[in-house]
């Protein structure tokens, strides 16, 4: 398994949309973090991560998301995570990261 990352900046909403497809794990999490943070350096906006194509996340993936959140907070930006599959959402609940990130069911609510 691997990870494909679709990234785009929506200027009207000042929003960075991230669509990871596959696994954010010990093999891919570093690259994921770098790509998202690079995009954030270019356009300091809120970051919306669409989890609908995400199959697997481990603790290094959660760590990468926390690093992204920390950087976003420095400029009062938010990280919104949507459409997580139940097996991944469970990890956010266990680690209480569901209280730290803005997690939503649908990408448009």
């Amino acid at each position, binding site marked *: 398994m691997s990870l494909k990352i679709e990234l785009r900046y929506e200027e009207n909403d000042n929003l960075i949309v991230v669509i990871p497809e596959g696994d954010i794990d*010990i*093999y891919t999490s570093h690259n994921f973090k770098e790509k998202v943070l690079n995009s954030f350096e270019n356009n300091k906006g809120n970051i919306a991560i669409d989890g609908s194509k995400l199959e697997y996340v*481990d*603790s*290094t993936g959660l760590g990468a998301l926390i690093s992204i959140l920390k950087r976003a907070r420095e400029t009062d930006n938010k990280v919104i995570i949507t459409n997580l599959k139940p*097996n991944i959402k469970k*990890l956010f609940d266990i*680690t209480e990261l569901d209280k730290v990130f803005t997690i939503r069911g649908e990408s448009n609510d």
Partner: protein
Amino acid sequence: MTKDNIYLKIPCKPDYISLVRLTTSAIAHNLKLCIDEIEDIKVCIGEACINVINQKNKDEISIQFEVNEDKLIIMVNDVTDDLESDTEGFKEEELGLLIIKSLMDEVDFTDKGINMIKYIE
């Protein structure tokens, strides 16, 4: 009662973790565990391997699957819950252990490593 043992030894590198996850998933699938339980076990074996890789001084990861009639025991050598204290507050390693303890039915640390148990209904 019969016990079947499966041994897996991999280089201590992130490159091989997906292979371990797939193998673990196949073993759990054979035991007729449900999809949710298989996912839980996959996450836990991944976290156990990450724990060993993060210690940075190991060459290989040694895994034993003991298949019993009523339970699956997964033993991973060198997994430790003795984490170096970090003033930064947050540690991925702590998240990993928290996840393992939450998702498995029983978790023991021995002088060899970790034993993770999932009961078969």
